[in-house]
């Protein structure tokens, strides 16, 4: 278990990398069609080996702490490909490093069902009846997170709660929480903007 100071230091280090690699200011059309002055591409951070270690360590602490608060035992962690994939695996690896033999598994959710075979949407280490944590890289409207939740439930899983790397504070968290799932963000839009140093706008 990390001390609160160590966790705060790791979060600060990760936020610095996130802002440097993944955040752009300007005017952007998001995947939802909405326009925003902030673009966040978390893949650049989650797929950075140094940042991935931090994502894993922090994510594992958030998962452990939240599961303990809610008195839940979590079997697996995963979310909608591809944004969630490196985050889930980093958390799974951190769990193994912290507690060798820990049974926490990871999985991924396809955006659409496989066209042949069993047409299943979940790939990897998930079985019917599992209690899972759904992860996502960025939450804007909550659409991709809700897709993953629906896929898990359609295949017989139970969603314990949701962990996201960045909550853009544009209503997505509320949309997910209205459905009864707690959302635990690493960072919010406010954190990102507070960290970001003034620089010319991205054209």
């Amino acid at each position, binding site marked *: 278990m990390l001390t609160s100071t160590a966790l705060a230091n790791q979060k600060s280090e990760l936020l610095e990398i996130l802002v440097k690699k993944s955040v752009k200011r300007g*005017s952007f*059309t998001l995947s939802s*069609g909405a*326009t925003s002055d902030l673009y966040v*591409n978390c*893949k650049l951070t989650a797929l950075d080996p140094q940042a991935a270690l931090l994502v894993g360590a922090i994510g594992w602490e958030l998962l452990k702490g939240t599961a303990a608060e809610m008195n839940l035992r979590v079997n697996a962690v995963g979310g909608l490909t591809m944004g969630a994939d490196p985050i889930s695996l980093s958390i799974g690896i951190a769990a193994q490093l912290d507690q060798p033999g820990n049974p926490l598994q990871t999985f991924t959710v396809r955006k659409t069902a496989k066209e042949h075979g069993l047409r299943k949407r979940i790939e990897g280490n998930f079985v019917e009846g599992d209690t899972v944590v759904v992860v996502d890289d960025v939450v804007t*409207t909550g*659409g991709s997170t809700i897709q993953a939740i629906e896929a898990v439930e359609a295949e017989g899983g139970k969603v314990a709660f949701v962990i996201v790397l960045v909550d853009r504070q544009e209503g997505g968290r509320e949309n997910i929480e209205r459905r009864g799932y707690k959302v635990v963000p690493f960072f919010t839009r406010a954190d990102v903007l507070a960290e970001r140093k003034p620089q010319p706008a991205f054209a």
Partner: protein
Amino acid sequence: MSLPNESPNQRLRKLLQGSLSQNKLEELARLFDLLAQDRATVLPCFVLHHVCRRLAVALDGEAVTPQRFGELTEGIAERITLILMQMEKGRTISEQELESLVVQLFSNLALFGR
């Protein structure tokens, strides 16, 4: 996430209203894929599926400015809507109509002339 009593065509029409987005395009691609497997108009639905899919992939993970977004999606929803209306009336979709849509897509993606 369609309403239980909503037909695929109603859902498609709703998605085609207003400007397109990556999320809408992914859902359109999924619905056209289902329709391609389910009715007589296999080829038009198969083409429409791929047009939506291709555009959704182009938008995925990109920092797209509103101007670039407008260029990428220009004319696509209108052309798909026209084809969908023809299909609803039971009319055969010509090769030229489908080609015109694909040409528009390739122009938007700036794939011509490379």
